[in-house]
């Protein structure tokens, strides 16, 4: 074989055998969640948030200490993002996450990214495979736009679907993370490990640049204004009111935290399917179960443990990811969302 032909053949073999772009990142194609605007509309709504790419640095080598050690730094009412996976529990204090927004971690041998957007009050977990997620410095509807370090595709956190780059239109594999208080989390998971302030970066972890959750003040107050333009708004709730939202391929639904606390269990229909939203009073969050047969959930028989909700006729019902969000952001992403406030019949 001629020398140049041999080089070309070698190159061809290398190109054909190399993994596809983004193979390191587990994705869902097509995504299993609603995408209510076109990708082009999302791309046009992207704004600079101020910081440069990685100007808000993700934590890529997280360190952890015990719940006992964390007690010296956290008050029971301080907010954390919790993750429980395969028998391991970890807590990520909001006061650290507000400066980094993404922790690229590994739990029980599974690489995960725990992400938090302070401007929309949303915490979501994703499988990250062999790559990492980073902060692009851009926002959509005030929400963090992440990028993956394998393909540089752009992923709005709330959407969980790439709007730009080689993986545009594909979804990320989501993990349930819990937005709760330190006191509630350590009561449920006393053996939890807690992210330390040794992040590799110097930040003032005693101060939140936007306000406070303990007690609530500044940007986090329900009636306070948003900073960036949004794709849709209606004023049905105060902008920063907290809702628990979930989405399916058929649409999106949200319940107010007040209604969920008051009722304990809420039955919602999204498209042709029914879902049970169950309040977990220990963590003050909700679990969403796909309930196609509208099985009656017996509130007094429900049990809550490390794995979530059980008992009360929930056996056999599959779990749907859900997360808390500021209302203005949820509505901007999902303008046709069903909203349940408890003072009305569920309506689209």
């Amino acid at each position, binding site marked *: 074989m001629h020398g140049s032909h041999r080089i070309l053949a070698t190159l061809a073999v290398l190109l054909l055998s190399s993994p596809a772009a983004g193979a390191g990142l587990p994705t869902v194609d097509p995504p299993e969640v609603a995408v209510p605007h076109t990708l082009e509309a999302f791309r046009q709504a992207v*704004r*600079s*948030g*101020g*910081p*440069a790419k990685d*100007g*808000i640095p993700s934590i890529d080598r997280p360190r952890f200490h015990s719940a006992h050690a964390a007690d010296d730094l956290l008050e029971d009412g301080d907010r954390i993002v919790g993750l429980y996976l395969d028998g391991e529990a970890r807590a990520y204090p909001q006061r650290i996450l507000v400066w980094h927004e993404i922790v690229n971690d590994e739990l029980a041998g599974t690489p995960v990214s725990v992400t938090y957007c302070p401007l929309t009050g949303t915490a979501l977990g994703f499988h990250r495979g062999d790559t990492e997620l980073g902060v692009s*410095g851009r926002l959509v509807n*005030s929400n963090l736009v992440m990028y993956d370090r394998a393909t540089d595709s752009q992923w709005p956190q709330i959407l969980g679907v790439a709007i730009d780059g080689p993986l545009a239109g594909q979804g990320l594999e989501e993990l349930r993370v819990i937005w709760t208080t330190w006191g509630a989390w350590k009561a449920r998971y006393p053996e939890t490990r807690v992210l330390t302030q040794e992040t*590799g*970066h*110097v*930040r*003032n972890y*005693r*101060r939140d*640049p936007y306000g406070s959750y303990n007690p609530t003040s*500044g*940007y986090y107050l329900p009636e*306070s*204004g*948003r*900073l*960036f*333009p949004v794709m849709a708004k209606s004023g049905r709730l105060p902008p920063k009111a907290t809702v628990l939202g979930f989405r399916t391929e058929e649409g999106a639904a949200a319940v107010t935290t007040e209604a969920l606390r008051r009722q304990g269990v809420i039955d919602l229909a999204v498209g042709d399917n029914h879902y049970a939203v169950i309040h977990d009073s220990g963590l003050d969050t909700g679990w969403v179960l796909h309930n196609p047969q509208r099985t009656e959930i017996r509130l007094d028989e429900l049990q809550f443990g490390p794995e979530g909700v059980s008992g009360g006729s929930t056996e056999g019902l599959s779990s749907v990811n859900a997360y808390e969000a500021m209302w203005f952001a949820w509505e901007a992403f999902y303008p046709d969302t069903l909203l349940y406030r408890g003072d009305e019949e569920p309506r689209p």
Partner: protein
Amino acid sequence: MKPLRALWVILCHWPLGLGLVATVGLVYGGLYLWLIGDLGGGGTGGLHAVFPAWERVWETRGPFHFEPVGLIEAGPLVWTFSPINSLLAWGLGMLLGTNLTLGWRLRRASRACGWQASGSSFLSSLPALLAGGACCAPLALIWLGLPLAGALASLTPWLIPLAALLLLASLAYLTKVLASSVS
């Protein structure tokens, strides 16, 4: 070189002016660092300093915003210290202070001597004041929670160099007027 020499002579022989430049520079620099988040509350009362990240000295967090290399706690204050951010803060502060002090000096002199050009010399310090505030405006708006901050966020890369240019231009003008008034 004549205007610069005039500026040097004026400041060296005018302790009050020098004090004003230093005070404005210090206050402005502190405010700048507060607004970009390098200076804040949360201190536990003691005096404590660690510098664990010198390797990040040139890493940027955004346009003209650099990574801190150390953390200084003094009383109730916590200062995440970046040498470059500090130089920018106090450099702009000194420029603003010199502009305002010279503007004030020329205004006083104009009242005493009745110069024709003196009114404009005072007005020239206004852009300097606006420029000095402009570089922190988006940060201040975010801090105050005003929606305008989102629109201004994309302008931030331009505001700091623009502020420095305006302050330098204003200073050049003031020193020129000063030199001509001395001669």
